């Protein structure tokens, strides 16, 4: 019964007219920015974070949840209509979604995506409510060594998602860890990598880094490419509601996608991307007519869209209960929570139950808002996609700059963001994926802190990580994962593995 009373408490907090308004507003602006081509959820969320800072924590979190779902769904809309995935998690949606759009069935594809996402989001919300309390009790028994090993596992797992070279992804994580250490060392009070610049003594804000690398860096990358025609779907979307046949074909795909996404989202390094790829592959493999995939099969939209929403949502579980982000988006959400004065971790549920359960309830509300906003407004998003990029990039650039300024209230942060914009562009040119770097950035100070504590407990003996059973288990898992990742590369067979993954 604890389950229902907790959820009831959450909805009691979240369901005030003002908070519903913030959820609506958040989902609205989240979709608005998320729908723009070339801006993925990370950049969208980073850019819109400042909008929530001036609100009460609960309202701010509710709006943030709206932004989060809006940004995720906006990416799918772009994928279906323009064939431009805003982020890797909507890459597979392009395959069949855009084909459906070309056949004049964009409305049906978007509606199935929205309804599938809503179903998946509802299930995943229930899962969070059910599993967060026991998991956070596990978390409370964790000591410094366990936390350190768990974060190490999370970092290694993040490499799974990076494209291309494993070593480069690991190096990017190390770079992120180093950037995360910049500022004043909380333990000794010594300054590190601050170059005697006053603004750097407090370290770099995660939103500044993310907006710089993903927002500004992405703009430079787009502008540096020769202009090409974008194939916006020109036809008017006449029919929004999917046919009975669409529903018949997709309901099982939605169920499978939801189940798969919910499980994969909890894993460190998991989340939306892994879930959507796996769900698409499963659907294609289990289909009686696999030849329909890639030619506008509605299951090919329903499954990955449900899965990525379920995965995006259940990836909140480790973040909320253990305080450890499983992917870059969660790393950003931790930054946002910290700005609201909330330190995610096992104690949050006990210390601030209304806030915790209010946030869970607001996730479901955010999902609902998405359906309400998106179904009637699809026509508007289509219009928005027709705005030429030469106008869009100026607006995006401005929002990035104002966003960074409002987070930090200092102009020097904007200059730092510009610097990271160039860094982001260079990294993308060098085929180094920046997402693992963000994760390392957030985990850097936490890992150092836990390493120090663990060493204090053991008297400087590193064997403590092996002597503690949970820590040992996590380290073995990390080691195995690393072995699986690196082995094919050492033998020069990584290409084959990759090709098989794409086939």
């Amino acid at each position: 019964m604890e389950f229902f009373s907790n959820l009831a408490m959450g909805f009691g907090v979240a369901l005030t007219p003002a908070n519903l308004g913030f959820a609506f507003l958040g989902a609205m602006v989240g979709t608005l920015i998320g729908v723009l081509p070339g801006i993925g959820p990370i950049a969208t969320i980073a850019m819109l974070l400042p909008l929530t800072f001036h609100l009460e924590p609960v309202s701010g979190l509710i709006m943030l949840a709206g932004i989060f779902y809006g940004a995720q769904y906006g990416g799918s809309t772009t994928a279906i209509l323009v064939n431009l995935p805003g982020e890797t998690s909507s890459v597979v949606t392009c395959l069949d979604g855009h084909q459906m759009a070309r056949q004049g069935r964009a409305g049906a594809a978007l509606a199935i995506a929205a309804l599938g996402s809503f179903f998946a989001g509802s299930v995943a919300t229930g899962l969070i409510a059910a599993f967060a309390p026991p998991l956070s009790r596990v978390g409370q028994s964790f000591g410094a060594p366990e936390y350190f090993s768990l974060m190490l596992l999370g970092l290694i797992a993040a490499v799974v998602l990076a494209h291309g070279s494993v070593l480069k992804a690991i190096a990017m994580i190390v770079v992120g860890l180093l950037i995360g250490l910049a500022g004043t060392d909380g333990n000794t009070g010594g300054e590190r990598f601050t170059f005697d610049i006053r603004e750097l003594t407090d370290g770099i804000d995660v939103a500044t880094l993310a907006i710089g690398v993903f927002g500004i860096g992405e703009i430079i990358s787009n502008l540096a490419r020769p202009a090409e025609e974008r194939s916006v779907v020109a036809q008017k979307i006449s029919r929004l509601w999917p046919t009975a046949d669409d529903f018949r074909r997709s309901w099982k795909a939605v169920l499978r996608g939801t189940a798969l996404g919910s499980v994969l989202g909890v894993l460190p390094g998991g989340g939306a991307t892994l879930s959507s790829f796996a769900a698409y592959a499963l659907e294609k493999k289990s289909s009686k007519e696999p030849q329909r995939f890639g030619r506008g099969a509605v299951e090919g939209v329903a499954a990955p869209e449900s899965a990525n929403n379920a995965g995006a949502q259940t990836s909140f579980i480790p973040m909320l209960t253990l305080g450890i982000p499983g992917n870059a988006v969660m790393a950003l959400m931790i930054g946002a929570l910290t700005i609201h004065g909330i330190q995610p971790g096992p104690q949050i549920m006990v210390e601030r139950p209304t806030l915790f359960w209010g946030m869970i309830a607001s996730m479901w509300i955010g999902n609902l808002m998405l359906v309400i906003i998106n179904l009637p407004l699809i026509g508007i998003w289509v219009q928005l996609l027709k705005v030429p990029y030469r106008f869009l990039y100026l607006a995006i650039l401005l929002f990035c700059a104002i966003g960074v300024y409002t987070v930090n209230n200092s102009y020097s942060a904007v200059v730092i963001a510009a610097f990271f914009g160039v860094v982001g562009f260079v990294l993308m040119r060098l085929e180094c994926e920046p997402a693992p770097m963000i994760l390392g950035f957030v985990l850097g100070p936490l890992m150092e802190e836990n390493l120090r504590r663990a060493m204090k407990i053991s008297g400087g003996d590193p064997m403590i990580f092996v002597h503690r059973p949970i820590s040992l288990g996590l380290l073995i898992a990390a080691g195995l994962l690393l072995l699986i990742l690196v082995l094919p590369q050492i033998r020069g067979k990584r290409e084959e593995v990759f090709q098989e993954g794409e086939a």
Partner: protein
Amino acid sequence: MLARADVLSGLLFVAIAVFGLWISRDYPVGTSLRMGTGYVPRLLCWVLLGLGAIVMAQGLRQPAPALRPTALAGRAVLSVTVAIVAFALSLEKLGLVVAIVLLVGIGSLATRALRPLETAIAAVGLIILSWGIFIAGLGLAIPLWPDF
């Protein structure tokens, strides 16, 4: 051969690591029991140095097309960076209107596709939009006009 993506990334990692080691040369390292300010950063720099060297070595072995800097890319990097820095430096003293005009004006140089009239329209539109959202809507303490 040196301009391949992998070789360059390896070089970049090595450069960051060496730079980090140099900057942190005076940070107290301490012992594993009482870690100093420099313990973890220096450890990470050494790891990065190793990783960078391997990435570079692999890049030298595997053939890949060379990256060439293009005029388009140089133009994009330069105008976007200068536009944002100009915005940052002018916002507090000269106000939102001037800052946006600078950002849009300099930023528009990144592409030849924008005509002067279009740039002007974009600037006016964005000024009204951001005034509405950030000053009127959110009540942020950003000055609108220059403060003389």
